[in-house]
């Protein structure tokens, strides 16, 4: 039997397929709601994956040039959301950094040679646009490549109370005299802080006043060499003790961004000073290259 010159079986088949397509899209969203969101943020709409991939291809984000496009594209089809572009750019940055740094590191965590340090600084400058220095103004930490472990929040002012907070202040005391004095800058410093082993620096006790001044809130770059995730933080505490087997500590936010929050809540990092005399580098995750 014919209907509009289309065999009935074909028409029934089309209807059945339409329904099946909707059902599989719904199943996907129900089964993987978080993944559906990630795909959507990246520019791929579940329910219309074919068209999404075509748009991504046409917007020039695909390296290959062998694609053919079935439907004609409108200018609206060619736009990606800003968030998708920035997410992809950040992912790209991390991949490049991880790949570049991995090639330079020793197989096991150990001291870096001067040439390794120099090569890493060059790569960080090239990829992140940040002047990462292993030695700055004659100061050098006792470790540059080591294990970072999870620290708690630090008390920002007398009477401060937040979940997962250390019972004592950090190495420099309170960040602010009281709640009213706590500005955004100081809040960010507590949010993105690290602990380094200043206590083991050879001149620490002898030159404590000057060194304390130099190290207090000194800006550092912390890199997860496996993922390329990097975060700019300040030195706000001393430690950890040598017996822990760790060389650095990271605030909850630092550790979360580095993806060291599960299991033993520790992982390998490269830690450098940031040479930023004009204070242009912001504290927090580095997800784009600085000019």
């Amino acid at each position, binding site marked *: 039997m014919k209907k509009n*010159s*289309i*065999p009935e*079986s*074909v028409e*029934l*088949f*089309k209807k*059945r*397929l*339409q329904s*099946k*397509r909707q059902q*599989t*899209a719904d*199943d*996907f969203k129900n*089964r*993987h709601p*978080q*993944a559906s969101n*990630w*795909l959507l*943020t*990246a*520019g*791929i709409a*579940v*329910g*219309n*994956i*074919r068209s999404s*991939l*075509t748009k*991504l*291809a046409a917007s020039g*984000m*695909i*390296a*290959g040039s*062998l*694609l*053919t*496009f*079935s439907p004609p594209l409108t200018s609206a089809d060619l736009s990606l959301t800003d968030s*998708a572009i920035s*997410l*992809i750019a950040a*992912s*790209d940055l991390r991949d490049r950094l991880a790949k570049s740094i991995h090639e330079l590191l020793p197989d096991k965590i150990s001291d870096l040679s001067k040439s390794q340090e120099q090569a890493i600084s060059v790569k960080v400058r090239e990829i992140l646009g940040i002047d990462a220095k292993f030695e700055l103004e004659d100061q050098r930490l006792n470790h540059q490549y080591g294990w970072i472990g999870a620290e708690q929040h630090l008390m920002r002012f007398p009477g401060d109370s937040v979940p997962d907070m250390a019972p004592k202040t950090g190495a420099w005391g309170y960040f602010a005299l009281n709640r009213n004095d706590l500005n955004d800058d100081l809040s960010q410093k507590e949010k993105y802080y690290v602990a380094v082993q200043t206590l083991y620096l050879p001149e620490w006790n002898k030159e404590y006043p000057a060194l304390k001044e130099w190290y207090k809130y000194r800006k550092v770059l912390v890199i997860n060499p496996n993922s390329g995730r990097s975060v700019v933080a300040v030195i706000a505490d001393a430690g950890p003790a040598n017996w822990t087997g760790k060389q650095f500590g990271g605030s909850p936010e630092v550790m979360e961004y580095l*993806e060291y929050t599960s299991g033993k809540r520790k992982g390998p990092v490269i830690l450098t000073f940031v040479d930023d005399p004009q204070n242009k580098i912001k504290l927090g995750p580095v997800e784009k290259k600085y000019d």
Partner: protein
Amino acid sequence: MTKIFYWHLVELEPIKMELTNQGAGGADVEEILGHIEEIIHHRILSFIFDNLPAEHHKEFSLKLAKNPQNQEIWNFLQAKTEKDLTVEVENNIRRIISEILDDFVVDK
């Protein structure tokens, strides 16, 4: 067809032949293949997300968006799932196409 890293495992000729045998026109074939492509994507991506630990879902999504054709995605999946998904994806695709063909045969 828009290429995606697993698309070389998809064989749609049997369905095209069935459609042609049934006298379906070019526009119908195009529409039907579009639905089938979408069904395959949903099912295969769902299978991948089932096997990939949740902490890697975001990275996989971004890699897919960045370059859907990139065969390196297989290496990423193998590293994160600690198994070779290629054969399972291929079997899944065969199963999906077989189900679709069965539907069509019932309709004849």
